[in-house]
């Protein structure tokens, strides 16, 4: 899951080296915290949140495939 999110984020941003994903396990499942360069925030969120929504949808599908529950949080560096 972590690897997938890192891959997606790196394909979308101008500063792939700044992409960082940390996994946190809480009582509701896996929380993936995505950190990108402040300049890239707009790229991973997209107009009206479209890109962020797409990232979440794809990660959720992968989570279903893996039989886990996963959520994505995008945080500023």
């Amino acid at each position, binding site marked *: 899951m972590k690897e997938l999110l890192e891959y997606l984020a790196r*394909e979308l941003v101008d500063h792939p080296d700044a992409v960082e994903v940390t996994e946190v396990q809480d009582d509701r499942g896996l929380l993936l915290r995505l950190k990108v360069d402040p300049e890239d925030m707009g790229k991973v969120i*997209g107009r*009206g949140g*479209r*890109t962020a929504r797409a990232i979440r*949808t*794809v990660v959720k599908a*992968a989570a279903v495939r893996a039989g886990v529950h996963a959520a994505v949080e995008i945080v500023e560096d």
Partner: protein
Amino acid sequence: MEEVERSGPSVEEALEVALEELGASEQEVVVEIVQEPRSGVLGIGAQDAVVRVRLKARGEELSEDELEEQAEIACEFLEGLLERMDIAASVEPGLEDGSMYVDLLGEGDEQADDDMALLIGRHGQTLDALQELTRVVVGRRTEGRCRVIVDVEDYRKRRRRRLEGRARDLAKRVQRSGREEALEPLTAFERKIVHDAVSGVSGVTTESRGEEPERYVVIRPSG
């Protein structure tokens, strides 16, 4: 449909509606603000924002080479994504009626059927997400708008044909009865298919109503 004029409580909201009707992103259009919104006093004299939005350089179609370049980028991106989702599928580009399709195909076993259904998602939601991500990735690496249509085992093509047929039948009914008819809630991509299919039927027009994800298309008599 190359130009639309739409209104909304703010310029941003009016633009959002117009872009959706055109099936375009902000970079692909020229925006003219026809009227700034005014809040008025106690609602008196208030007016909506009105924007006119035109598709940029529609005449300039992409060459076959450019389409192939876009397809190559899309295939590479999607292959990397499938690998990380642990899904075995082939990614096949193909030119059809001037559109570049990139089709994801399962290997035909039971696991593959489940995986392909997962990639399509409920009402095609996951497929739309793959489309959106591909659009951004291709847009970043090439000039011009992304023309690649991502599909999973021809889901879009089949659905498109069905939807076009249904929209035209309904449009003819509106033409005869003079009464408006609504389709069920659809995604932005599917609404665009309906707008396009009905634009060829005289005496009727289409508009989208409602809020996402319950936004739907109404076909009504024009004029």
